[in-house]
Each structure stands twice: as C-alpha cells, then as structure tokens.
C-alpha cells in the first residue's frame, strides 16, 4: 500500500477511535514527516486526501484540524469504499476458515471497543 494511503488510514482510524478528537490539531507536515521518516510531500498528499474526504480541515495559516462534521462524501461513494473493505475482510475470513457468523460477531465486538474508547 502506498505510504500516503497508510497515513490516511491511520489518521482515519485515530479519528474513528476517538484518539484524535474533533477540533484537535494534527501535527504539522514537517513534524510528521520527520517522525515517520517520509518525504514531506507524502505527508502533504495524505493531508490533502484527508481534507478531500472531510476528515480534516485546513485553517488558513494556522494548521490542520480534525473536522467537526462527518464525511461529506455522498452515501454511494462511502458505500463503495466500504464494499472494497468488506470484500477484503470476507476473503481473508474464508482463507482463515472463520465462519461468516463469527465475522459478524467480531464486527460487533470491535464496534463496542471503538465506541467504548470514545467515551
């Protein structure tokens, strides 16, 4: 997976799990680049992608912040992204011999963990 997408997914995860809260500032591009040891342009690209997806908002001259609102993507778009993830998950489950019902149960458990940690 390209590095910028890894950053995008990581930030999305941190927001979904509440470890990054709405209104919180994400690290400046140069700082994150040095932390992760990646090209600053790669971080800039990840932030642009996150901005497009509505996860973060850029405030002129003052940095990048986690958005208050949810994703502005159309429902169709959102479902399309999720469908790909669902396919990957189901394929993996089949290879690992995990029953479909068990996958559903696991999803419910993980959902509880995520919502728990938000509190």
């Amino acid at each position, binding site marked *: 997976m390209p*590095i910028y997408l890894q950053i995008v997914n990581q930030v999305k995860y941190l927001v979904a799990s509440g470890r990054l809260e709405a209104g919180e500032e994400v690290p400046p591009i140069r700082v994150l680049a*040095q932390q992760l040891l990646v*090209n600053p342009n790669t971080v800039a690209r990840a932030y642009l992608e996150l901005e497009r997806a509505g996860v973060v908002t850029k405030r002129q001259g003052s940095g990048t912040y986690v958005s208050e609102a949810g994703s502005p993507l159309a429902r169709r778009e959102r479902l399309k992204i999720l469908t790909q993830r669902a396919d990957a998950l189901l394929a993996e489950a089949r290879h690992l011999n995990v029953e479909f019902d068990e996958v559903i149960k696991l999803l419910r458990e993980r959902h509880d963990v995520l919502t728990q940690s938000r509190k």
Partner: protein
Amino acid sequence: MKTDVSPQKNAVIEIHGLRRRFGSKLALNDVSLTVSRGVVFGLVGENGAGKTTLIKHVLGLLKAQSGSVRVFGLNPVTDPVGVLGRIGYLSEQRDLPLWMRVDELLRYTRAFYPKWDAAYAEQLREQFGLDPAARIKHLSRGECAKAGLLLALAHRPDLLLLDEPSSGLDPVVRRDILEAIIRTVADEGRTVLFSSHLLDEIERVADHVAMIFAGRLAWSGPLDDVKKSHHQFVVRFASPLSSPPVIAGALSATGGGHEWTVVCDGARSELMAAVSRIGGTIVEERSPSLDDIFVARVGAKDATAVTKIVPC
C-alpha cells in the same frame, strides 16, 4: 564550454549528454538529468552501473569527457570553491583523518566552510552520541558514518549529496541518515541527491527517482510517475509452463507452473492483449513496488529497452 541549453531557473544540478569512458569501459553513456531545488532525488542502480561516477562529476572530481555538468549554474571543475562550499557530501568510503579526535575533526573541518554552524554541529554531535575526546580510529563503523554525516550537515549545505550512505550500517544509523535527509528538505527547500541499494528507503523519502543501468539512464522522473507507469500482472495459464512465457512488452516474467508475475512499463492494454494471445488470463493486477520495478528491469535483457525520459 558552450552552453546551448539555457539553464533552468530552479535547477540545482543540470547534466546534459554526459559520457565517460574508463579504458574500454563506457561508464556513463549520454546521461542527461536535472535535479530541481527542494527535491529529494534518489539514484538507483546496480553496483558498477555508474552512480558513483555520476556523483563524482557533480563534485567536480571527474571532468566531463563530453557533455556538460552544471551545479548551481556553475562548472564544478573550473569553479570548485563556488560549488563545493555549498555541498555536503557523504560517501560510502569515509576517508576521515584517523589520528584526529572528534573535537579536532570538527574544528579542522569548520575552517573550510564559512557557513559552518557551530551550535548545530554541537547539537548533532550530542544527538549522535559522539565523544569529543574519542580518536577517529577508535570509532565504530556506525560512529564513523555519523561523524561523516555531521561534517556533511553542519555547514547547512544547499545540496546534500549522499553516495550509498546506508550501506552496511545498522538500522539506528540508517534512521539518523533518513532523518537528516528529511530535515534537509523540510528546511527552506534545500536539495538532496542520494544513491542507495535500499529501494524501500528511496521509496520512503525520494520524490524523484532515476534508474541507471550499465551507464545509461533508464528512467528519470517523479517517483509517482515511475510507479504509475509500471504495472504488475499475475497471469494464469491453463496448463503449467516449464519456462517463462514470452510476452511482447513485458520487462520480466517470474514465477512457475500455472502462475507467472509480469511487469511492464506503460503499454498496459497492449500487454493485456499479448497475454490473451498466448492463452493466459490475468487474475490480478497490482501496482509494483520500486523494488519489483528495479528487479524486473535488471532481469530484462535490455533494461533501457522501453526508455521514457521525463524532464523533472
């Protein structure tokens, strides 16, 4: 020397038609490339492909036999003071004066650079954990690399030139080197040119990449374009093949039996057509890593066969 090509405004290094022969061996064959200000430029190639020879031309240690080399718009051979004073250089061969102590080495090197930043040098020395009283000859391999890196960085060069800097070093020192690269470009748009065998490092930090094979430039352009232009397919055949399939447009085919992995540069639909002509089915398409691309090109009979030079 005539300059029929007008210098580009933002170019730090400009090389046109550079050719270099050592005896009967053509070390560089008509190499042209431009390194723009503020980029991290990764140079990739096998041992003996010509990377170090190219870097030596940038430093003015070798004179162009034909073609031209300009660094900061200057000829590094005739204007070494104007060029070398603005370059921080670290090579695989770290020829440091072995009899000196670390603090002596810093004082000694400082004399050569009007822009030497003593506070920054001290900060790096501490960060790298170098004992000022230690003799260079008693430093470990990693510490030598750190000392070399310190000398290359402490005068805040406009161009950081690293020739196989990570070669043979442990992950901690490699991390220091990557950090130096990132910090250099993140700081007011300075420029880095580095060569490496470690393609995952190049993929991490470079935004431009050039591949050299047997003295020829096979590819030069933004890393993104290199990755977008190459495609990797997994091809399945109904009956197992005992030798790699010959597919028009493919750089390489590896694998065995029913499934073969094929890499091509551009010409995606042509390749897909060629695959179906010989009875294969494409079961998967992936975007190859820089490593996959490099290996596929090295394996190709003529690595520069599908040459595509993108000005950067």
